């Protein structure tokens, strides 16, 4: 007699069944990411509502109802944004009061900036050695192009304005504040008490006061401090002050990096017989700067945003130009449009910088963890 088994057993493999509909595809994603709990659902609904009341009206205002043509604000009818000034004023926004027949010089300086930056920002650039030499001479070339002389028509620095002024002050500040910041950071860590105290006082005083007061110093106090016959160019004064300001912050960022280097590295460098500067240049700084890249780039971004402060001492950067324009009877009250436009410039430059620093961080992360 053959016993029948009491329970059924499968002798064949069951085929795969699809996952429940609610956990895959769009539905599943939405359940997991948007409606996973009651609180989450409330938040999602709130967010959708927020987007609904802000995005469509903004697009309606800026694009669908926006008007691009017109002589002045009176030719802009309707509720939408008035972009008519772009056509007439874009030159001022970009170049300030630079003579319009000479603006090619600014454009050329900007184009040449890319090969000058390339060897420092990218790997595998062909002809890296020559480009490095080029970038060393780039500041001289740029100043020559912007100011003129030696055959080019001379243009006063008072004509610098618009986004050009932001770029000039920002780039000069970035290029100068890094080495000054490194020196200050090393000074603060120095074993020589006077050097250390000098660095600490400089860093703490500059970091303790708003940039605006330093700019006032450059405008009002410097003429008192200098001999009567020495008149410093206003753009140069701003660059000096912004550099001093940013380098104090830079010094603190780099100090953080220096402190993160294990003591063994310093001792190993000494044991190899390296002197102070050699060990700094070859052992300590490469590691410290690598750690502090995010902070350094953040300082650069802050510096670039701070270039708008020049309007308080009467220079016309892109923000100054837009402020002047919206108080002009022809374009009175178009502040929302101009501020939206100007903010795009800063957003693009600063966002690019922050993304670049993030990718650099990932690339330089050589920790074998």
């Amino acid at each position, binding site marked *: 007699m053959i016993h029948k088994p009491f329970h059924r057993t499968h002798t064949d493999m069951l085929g795969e069944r699809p996952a429940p509909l609610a956990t895959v595809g769009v539905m599943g994603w939405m359940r997991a990411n948007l409606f996973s709990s009651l609180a989450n659902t409330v938040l999602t609904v709130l967010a959708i509502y927020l987007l609904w009341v802000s995005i469509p009206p903004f697009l309606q205002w800026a694009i669908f109802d926006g008007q691009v043509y017109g002589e002045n604000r009176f030719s802009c009818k309707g509720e939408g944004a008035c972009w008519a000034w772009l056509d007439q004023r874009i030159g001022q926004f970009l170049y300030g009061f630079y003579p319009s027949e000479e603006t090619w010089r600014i454009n050329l300086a900007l184009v040449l900036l890319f090969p000058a930056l390339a060897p420092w920002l990218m790997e595998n650039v062909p002809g890296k050695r020559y480009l490095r030499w080029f970038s060393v001479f780039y500041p001289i070339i740029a100043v020559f192009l912007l100011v003129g002389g030696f055959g080019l028509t001379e243009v006063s620095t008072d004509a610098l304005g618009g986004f050009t002024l932001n770029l000039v002050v920002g780039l000069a500040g970035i290029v100068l504040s890094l080495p000054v910041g490194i020196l200050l950071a090393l000074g603060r860590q120095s074993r020589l008490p006077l050097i250390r105290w000098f660095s600490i006082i400089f860093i703490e005083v500059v970091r303790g006061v708003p940039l605006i007061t330093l700019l006032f110093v450059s405008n009002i*106090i410097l003429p008192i401090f200098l001999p009567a016959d020495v008149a410093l160019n206003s753009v140069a004064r701003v660059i000096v002050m912004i550099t001093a300001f940013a380098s104090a912050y830079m010094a603190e960022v780099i100090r953080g990096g220096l402190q993160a280097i294990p003591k063994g590295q310093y001792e190993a460098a000494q044991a190899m017989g390296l002197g102070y500067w050699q060990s700094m240049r070859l052992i300590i700084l490469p590691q410290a700067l690598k750690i502090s890249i995010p902070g350094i780039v953040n300082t650069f971004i802050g510096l670039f945003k701070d270039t708008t402060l020049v309007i308080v001492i009467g220079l016309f950067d892109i923000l100054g130009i837009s402020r002047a324009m919206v108080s002009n009877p022809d374009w009175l009250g178009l502040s929302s449009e101009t501020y939206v436009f100007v903010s795009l410039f800063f957003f693009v430059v600063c966002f690019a910088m922050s993304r670049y620093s993030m990718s650099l961080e990932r690339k330089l992360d050589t920790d074998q963890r």
Partner: protein
Amino acid sequence: MTQTTRTDDERFQLRRILTDERSRGIIIQVILVLAVVAFIAFITRNTMVNLGKSGLTTGFGFLADPAFFDINQPLIAYNSQSSFARALLVGLLNTLLVSVLGIIGATVLGFTSGVLRLSKNWLISRLITSYVEFTRNVPVLLQILFWWALLTGLPKVPDSISIGDIAFVNNRGLRVPGPITEPGSMWVLIALALGIIAAVAISKWARKRQDLTGQTFPSALTGLGLVIGLPILVYLVLGQPLGWEIPERTRFNFRGGINVTPELIALWLALTTYTGAFISEIVRSGILSVSRGQSEAAFALGLRPNLTMRKIILPQALRVIIPPLTSQYLNLTKNSSLAIVIGFQDLVSIGGSILNQSGHSLEIVAIWMAIYLSLSLATSAYMNWYNKRIALVER
């Protein structure tokens, strides 16, 4: 023979002075001191010459002179006959007002958005990310101007937007109900202060008792009851000595209530959203720095997510958060000086008016620097103390 050896020796010693680390350090420092002294002497001499030429005197005596300019809505009694010193005090109070309001706003906004950005909700975290990225990458000066343009572009006074008929928004700002104080209202405030002190004391006692015996005490509820209940009790006992004056529409303006200027609101909004974005990033990275095992352990103990965040994650994250948070608070205070572009009369703006009127630029700049430096030092001293208090107690 001996002669040459001696010269060799001297040369050797001279070279040793230059190569010896200690003597080289001394030489470098002496050069630095000489350079600084020469620089100071140079600018002092120039200053003497320049001031002598323009016939200006130096010294802080001018601060007692009458200011002859008006200040919009001073926080303390002030008129155009008041002294320069009092004008500066009004400016300082305005700076402190907007800084404190901004710090409160930015902290709330930053912590909320920092926590929400880590939420599993895709839409919310994206929304917060775009807020943070956009606000951080646009100059704060531009944002101040933007908010100010937006607020001054609101409807005129007769067409004010009403908020439940108790507050009104128009292009001259926000008009809110103001308190009316009658004799006895002081006691309500004293009761409030006593309530707060009692609540703090009870929560301290409750924590100590829980540490010793493990018994819990509803200190949050009791504290809330004390803070709210005590003033209300006094208020009722004394016959309601404190009232609210609701602004009333007149033909061209409002009567009663307090008007908050659009400058203050714009500055506050801009500083709050700008600094809030930075704080949001700091909070996010602080929370991420707490290892995953901590929250897993808390869940294993049966703590709910809310309690895990409050009792396990945040206290550990705070150690990472506090130092950069301090510098954000200081940045906010310093950024409040940008008020000058929209005409909010803070310390820098009023100092600028005095400077133009009296010509005492050196003194005004010295006052600015002294005040901002002491604000910075005071804030960082307090935050250092707080940081030390919550720092990890290691074995």
